[in-house]
């Protein structure tokens, strides 16, 4: 029972090909795979100003760690700034914010914090108290995407990097299929966006081909977070159901999540072509980009 590449003790068995890797071979594998994704899909170009959207959880601190190394190797020609979104979730986000602050302080990375409280006057906990029947994730997802885009544009970012992994992408693909929301799938992929618009900062996903377990292993081996935590509201979401379903299938048929994403990438160019002329409006209330007269974030603000 040794590592595939050396005689060291393995720390992980990869699910898509059953290879066993030791600590140092896994870290090399992980970083090479992320950098191959960056290169293959041209996620980063010279002189890019990358803002990394972070929560302080395993995915975002791992992508921050990787891009910090990536930037240093290129003599800081690519600038990086961390942008933390504080939703205001007691006994959850406060822990990961401390991990994020510690990491940025130790690595001398600029950290900008934006919060739901500052944007809407309420924390997510308060919104949920007021709207008991509304699923927290439906308000949270809208506000997070809105704040990430608006704040990274203010920070003059050319790209917004997130810690989305293969599991997240496979879940989004399946959720859009279940709800017949194929136009939303056109916005997925390693680099998001159907058409260029200066109001939208392109989002890049260097961990597109890495599983959640691989990201957690990388975060653990690099001592990036103090405690693995699950959002207290996640059981309310449809994503939670799809995530468990996919994990059940994956344990019976290893490699399923990779296949879902690989199949999706084959049809993604056709989806982008089909939806390339979708109109982008301006929200009457906040002047941010919107799919109708009022953007989704302002609709959430009006009900909380």
């Amino acid at each position: 029972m040794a590592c595939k590449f050396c005689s060291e003790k393995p720390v992980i068995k990869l699910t898509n090909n059953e290879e066993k890797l030791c600590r140092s071979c896994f870290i090399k594998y992980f970083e090479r795979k992320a950098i191959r994704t960056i290169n293959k899909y041209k996620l980063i170009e010279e002189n890019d100003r990358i803002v990394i959207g972070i929560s302080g959880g395993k995915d975002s601190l791992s992508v921050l760690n990787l891009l910090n190394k990536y930037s240093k190797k290129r003599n800081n020609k690519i600038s990086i700034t961390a942008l933390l979104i504080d939703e205001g979730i007691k006994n959850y986000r406060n822990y990961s914010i401390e991990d994020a602050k510690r990491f940025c302080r130790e690595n001398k990375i600029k950290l900008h914090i934006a919060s739901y409280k500052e944007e809407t006057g309420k924390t997510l906990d308060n919104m949920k108290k007021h709207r008991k029947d509304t699923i927290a994730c439906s308000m949270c997802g809208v506000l997070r995407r809105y704040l990430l885009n608006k704040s990274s544009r203010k920070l003059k970012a050319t790209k917004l990097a997130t810690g989305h992994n293969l599991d997240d992408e496979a879940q989004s693909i399946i959720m859009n299929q279940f709800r017949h929301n194929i136009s939303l799938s056109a916005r997925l992929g390693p680099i998001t966006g159907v058409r260029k618009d200066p109001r939208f900062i392109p989002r890049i996903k260097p961990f597109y081909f890495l599983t959640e377990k691989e990201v957690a292993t990388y975060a653990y081996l690099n001592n990036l977070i103090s405690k693995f935590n699950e959002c207290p509201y996640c059981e309310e979401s449809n994503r939670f159901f799809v995530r468990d379903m996919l994990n059940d299938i994956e344990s019976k048929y290893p490699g399923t999540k990779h296949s879902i994403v690989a199949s999706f990438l084959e049809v993604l160019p056709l989806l982008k072509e089909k939806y390339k002329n979708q109109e982008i409006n301006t929200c009457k209330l906040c002047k941010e980009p919107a799919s109708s007269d009022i953007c989704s974030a302002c609709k959430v603000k009006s009900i909380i």
Partner: protein
Amino acid sequence: MPTVYLEKEDKTVEVNELIVSEILKSLKINPTTVIITKNDELILEESKLSKEDKITIIPVISGG
């Protein structure tokens, strides 16, 4: 018997099984959703434990 600390539930249980994958099965935990450590080192699901071993099961899903 090996002792298992479940980080998500913050509780410790004793189990009869000695192979990690069998422990996960008996606790109804999907192996793709966790990482497992012994003495702060990651171990594989096929690892065999001794009766005195203590392991920790850490969820990899953070949500949100």
